[in-house]
């Protein structure tokens, strides 16, 4: 058999077997993706239905403008703002810790650490990200809060600050890891260009690597915010159950997630309007994190385009 005959015979090799297997694999994979998509859609549908039912009884204007949240009391007020306030307060505090420290850690890992240090530290960060959040919650309640009370005696037993601090450290690895990915993706040729122009390592990092990775880093930041807003265990354990419009982090507050836990685990009758509030709150929470994730996604896509 000469060369061209051989080539022809391979090209024309029967493909039926091959095709059938490919089709089967594709069908199985499709099934699994479909299951996860339909589950998500199902959850959204339930959430949406219950939310609409809720808003038949409570006006949406009251929901967003009333400043008291007392669905579990005799005199019911349905203003979600105190819960949003609690969520934002805790999340903002957490971000004050997670974003700068996470970025610094990423800069160290990507630009300063030796290969060996990076190979040891990065997996450690990822392990830290895997600690169950309930552990963080107890740490906040039993270790951080007493510490805060030593510094500021007026600190309440449940307070926003200790949840913020611990949540910040919980989210830090996520920020560091994603930002490090974005910075490592900056081509070496850009660093070389900067060095060749007489830049110091610090200037290369600050003026070249970070700006070039900025959309990836912002995506990491937004994901972190979304994570903070949705975080439940720490706030349920350590931040309290008092919906309050306050900016004082030493006070007991209640976040949207903690409220949902409180009602879900409590003895509120399932058909009551009080019970239905958790769907409205859940829907709002879902919209907020969805929006964050969409923005983060969009930013990540944008930053991929830069080098391709």
């Amino acid at each position, binding site marked *: 058999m000469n060369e061209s005959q051989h080539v022809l015979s391979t090209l024309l090799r029967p493909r039926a077997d091959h095709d059938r297997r490919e089709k089967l694999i594709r069908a199985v994979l499709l099934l699994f993706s479909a299951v996860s998509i339909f589950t998500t859609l199902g959850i959204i549908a339930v959430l949406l239905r219950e939310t609409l039912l809720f808003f038949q009884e409570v006006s949406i204007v009251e929901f967003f403008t009333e400043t008291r949240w007392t669905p579990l009391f005799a005199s019911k007020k349905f203003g979600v703002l105190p819960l949003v306030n609690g969520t934002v307060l805790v999340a903002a505090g957490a971000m004050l810790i997670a974003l700068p420290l996470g970025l610094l850690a990423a800069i160290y890992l990507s630009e300063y650490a030796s290969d060996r240090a990076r190979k040891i530290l990065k997996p450690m960060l990822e392990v830290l990200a895997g600690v169950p959040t309930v552990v963080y919650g107890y740490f906040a309640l039993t270790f951080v809060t007493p510490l805060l009370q030593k510094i500021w005696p007026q600190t309440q037993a449940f307070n926003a600050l200790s949840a913020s601090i611990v949540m910040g450290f919980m989210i830090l690895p996520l920020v560091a890891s994603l930002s490090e990915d974005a910075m490592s993706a900056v081509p070496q040729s850009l660093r070389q*260009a900067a060095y060749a122009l007489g830049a110091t390592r610090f200037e290369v990092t600050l003026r070249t690597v970070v700006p070039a990775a900025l959309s990836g880093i912002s995506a990491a930041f937004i994901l972190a915010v979304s994570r903070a807003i949705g975080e439940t265990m720490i706030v349920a354990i350590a931040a309290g159950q008092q919906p309050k419009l306050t900016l004082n982090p030493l006070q007991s507050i209640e976040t949207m997630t903690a409220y949902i836990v409180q009602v879900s685990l409590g003895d509120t009758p399932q058909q009551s309007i009080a019970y239905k509030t958790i769907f409205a709150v859940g829907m709002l929470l879902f919209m907020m994190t969805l929006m964050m994730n969409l923005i983060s996604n969009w930013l990540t896509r944008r930053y991929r385009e830069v080098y391709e």
Partner: protein
Amino acid sequence: MFDKHEIALSVKNLNVDYGDFRALENISLEIPARQITAIIGPSGCGKSTFLRCFNRMNDLVPTARVTGEVLFYGQNIYDSKVNPVEVRRHIGMVFQKPNPFPKSIYENVAYGARINGYKGNMDELVERSLRAAALWDEVKDDLKKSALALSGGQQQRLCIARAIAVEPQVILMDEPASALDPIATLKIEELMQELKKDYTIVIVTHNMQQAARVSDYTAMMMLSKEGSRAGTVIEFGPTPQIFTSPRDRRTEDYITGRFG
């Protein structure tokens, strides 16, 4: 050899090792100021490694170790008192693949000046550098445009403008035209002739014709001996002499295409 030219860079007994692999062995030569010196040789013989010795870019390779001396107007740039960052402000570099920053054209050119705390008029510096790199006329109306939107040849000239804006004495170029089409290549070569009035240029090229066309001096590199992987300069002299009457048999073989 070149009494009429000042010596910009003088290399003495230079060796480079990557870990325990010796990449360059015992190189000594002198680079004349405001001339174009070409470094030619088969790929893998250490041309890029050699070029990176002139602005201490090998410092960025953790395994690289440079021994010997490189004197820049008499000062050994490998002296422990010398700051490599300062070296790179005097000896600029243009890379094989154009590597503009993902910023505007203007910001690319201004980058070096900004980090060096340039006090003069930035607009003027940017214009002067772009003119010197023969790019001004093509980009003067959209300096705010992303540098990544330029063609490959324009990007490479932008990289040259960016290097010029730091006001160096020497510009190193590592196969600056190898990623470009023939017309863009020609533009870069013409540009080099202009630049040589003000700058000392060292260019690595694997393109023999290019070396013959543009350079005044040529250094021929090869692996130092059979079986060794260490490169060295086997012959150095005025380009016409290297190309018409090489002293070394291996240079002749390489130039006439009987090698590599």
